[in-house]
């Protein structure tokens, strides 16, 4: 039982319950109350992202250090560590590239954004190739070709190593479309499908756990908030929101009839 709940916490709870129930009205069907919640969510999140971009990147990593660097370079102000600041003059490059990126919305100058895109795509591609080869190809090949037999290898491990090797080859053959899937190739490809079906089934089983845990989390909170400590927030707001959904339904059906 919570020791002492402040008025602020009560307000916060009612807000959270209201929003939660608004979204759950979608279970009945897509309706204006759900849409209201959805659009509030989009708006708040977008605003939050703007603040975030400003407070954590654009101001501290770009504008402020660049301002310092420029003022030091042109002897406008003296700072404690001028050397460190000079280095920051390089930040003009991302500033220019960033501004070029913003031309994307101009029909006349949008080609300028290509410089930024080319810079990003080229660098990221170059950086990723050696690392992807090492992490996802070389290091993945090693365990696929584990020794089948050895002093510390049990018969069970031998079988599993064989099964993994066969599975990897079968699935790869299934995805290899340069050869027509006939005869022996078709049989191996079909084995590949079996492997994938087991894997997808496992993924589905896990997905059920994931999705249900999200519902359980929300519902557990709603039950907690239905207690007298929170002035029966869930129960009262549930009735209000059901009432609102019924009202909007009545309005929309009357609207349809008059049309």
């Amino acid at each position, binding site marked *: 039982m919570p020791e002492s709940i402040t008025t602020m916490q009560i307000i916060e709870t009612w807000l959270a*319950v209201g*929003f*939660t129930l608004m979204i*759950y009205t979608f279970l009945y069907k897509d309706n204006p109350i759900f*849409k*209201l919640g*959805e*659009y*509030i*969510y989009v*708006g*708040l999140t*977008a605003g939050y*992202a*703007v*603040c975030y*971009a400003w*407070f954590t*990147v654009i101001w501290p990593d*770009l504008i402020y250090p660049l301002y310092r660097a420029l003022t030091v370079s042109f002897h406008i102000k003296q700072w404690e560590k001028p050397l460190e600041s000079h280095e920051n003059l390089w930040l003009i490059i*991302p500033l220019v*590239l*960033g501004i070029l990126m*913003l031309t994307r919305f101009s029909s006349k100058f949008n*080609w300028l954004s*290509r410089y*930024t895109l*080319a*810079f990003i*795509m*080229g*660098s*990221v*591609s*170059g*950086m990723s190739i*050696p*690392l992807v080869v090492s992490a996802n190809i070389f290091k*993945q090949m090693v365990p696929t070709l584990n020794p089948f037999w050895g002093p510390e290898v049990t018969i069970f491990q031998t079988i599993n190593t064989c099964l*993994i090797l066969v*599975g990897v080859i*079968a*699935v*790869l053959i299934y*995805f290899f479309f340069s050869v027509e899937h006939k005869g022996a190739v078709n049989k191996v490809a079909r084995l*590949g499908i*079996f*492997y994938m*079906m*087991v*894997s997808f*089934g*496992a993924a*589905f*089983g896990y*997905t*059920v*756990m994931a999705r249900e845990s*999200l*519902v359980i989390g929300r519902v557990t909170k709603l039950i907690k908030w239905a207690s007298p400590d929170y002035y029966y927030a869930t129960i009262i707001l549930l009735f209000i929101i059901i009432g609102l959904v019924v009202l909007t339904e009545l309005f929309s059906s009357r609207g349809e009839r008059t049309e």
Partner: protein
Amino acid sequence: MIKRQLPLLIAFAMGVIFIIQFFIPHQISQDLLTWVNKWLMIIGGISLLLGIYSLLNFHYLQIFRNKPGWGFSLIMFFSFLISVVVGFTPSLINVILPLPESSVQSAEQVKEWYRITGLKDGSSLDWIFRHGITPLSATMFSIIGFFIASAAFRAFRARSLEATLLLLAAVFIMLGQTPLGGMLWSGIPDIMTWILSTPNTAAKRAILFGIAMGSISFSLKIIFGIERAYLGGKN
């Protein structure tokens, strides 16, 4: 040339530089990696604004053209403004009207103002995040939990051998993940572990190989200017 060839040249140069850079441990090479990644982070921050502009522009047009549901777009704008105003106002006031720190009382006030600025714990924007964004977002994604049950009832049929394998694997995982599996039969958790570590590992590894090959060839196509779709436009 300036519109198409030069960007392709930039992509080629950057790509080749960073492939070579990987093999050179010299300080200059390392500094280059550090700086360019910092720039990419900054450009990422600016691009975030690009996405927001696009969203706002879409909703502005909805309202301006009186499209059905424009009222909701208005609500979107309104809640966007709430976030932005609440996020920036305390910091702005802090900059424009710095409170004197001479007396103990005002020092407390300064502390209070500082507490609610920016993004940290307990700031006013954090309040919106915790009590507005969090419940809305968490509930929005939890709805699928109901629909997945309905989908399992309707679509999960043992029509063929493949479908039966899929179904059996799913059931073993669902049982094995909870204490129920072990309670029904002690072999269920072991079967689950075997499914995950043997057939699943094999299938996922083959798919991983495919994705890795695909991403490498895509990267090479970008570097050599064969893949140009990301540039957009015709000329």
